[in-house]
């Protein structure tokens, strides 16, 4: 599977907790040069991720936010 397909597959099957994890570990933190792992993904994870988060949040509307 290409790196892009892999990234898409991860997001497609991610549940709400994984999406939150992805958003925190990929989006923020001490950032230094070295996109060895992510550079090959080539997918704009921000937009996919945020859209996916939104859908997940909507599905969880009636469930208490848990971590």
């Amino acid at each position: 599977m290409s790196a892009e397909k892999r990234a898409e597959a991860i997001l497609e099957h991610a549940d709400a907790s994984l999406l939150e994890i992805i958003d925190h570990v990929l989006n923020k933190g001490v950032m230094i040069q070295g996109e060895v792992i992510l550079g090959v993904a080539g997918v704009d994870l921000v937009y996919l991720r945020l859209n996916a988060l939104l859908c997940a949040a909507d599905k969880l509307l009636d469930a208490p936010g848990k971590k």
Partner: protein
Amino acid sequence: MIALYAIAQGAPPDAAGAFGERLRVIAHCGMELVCGDLPGRLSAETLRAYEAAVRWIADRSEACLPARFGASAASEADLRDLVEARAPALLEALALVRGREQMTLRVLGDLQPHAAAGGPGTRYLEERRRAAKVPELDPLRAALSSLIRAEQVEPHAQPGLVASVYHLIDRGDADRYRQLVESSPLEGVRVTVSGPWPAWSFAPELSR
């Protein structure tokens, strides 16, 4: 190549990485650089394991700045150089997050068009200011004021998703924070809470 897991102070010496490997702690400039092996590939398991490893470190450190997944340097010497170049900002960030953790709010809904006064230029600036600040959350901020030690806002401007707001709170305040969020009514937007998390959003970027 080495992967950076976190920059900390008072870090546990026996932390394990995403692959169960023993992590190395490099002391430099009054900080502890917690390092391990690069994740081989992007997968759900690796991401979960990385987050768990950083969380374990943060929970046991006096102060901890998580490193973004994939953060790496060509060598220990390179890493030391990068850290040294940003030492003042990193030390300041460590002081801020000491004994603290992060709560994350997702602000759902749509930005209401705001009837602002003035000409088109003034209205434009005001709209930009609101997008950056999300004043719809002010009642919530007021309710949380005794708990919030710092705030970061990330505007999204996506339909249905206004912004992500990150709050730094003292360790132990998460339940109280959640209670206050759940009992504070908001107009025009709603929020979901997650946390506590390590202080991902309060970590600066190292220079290239």
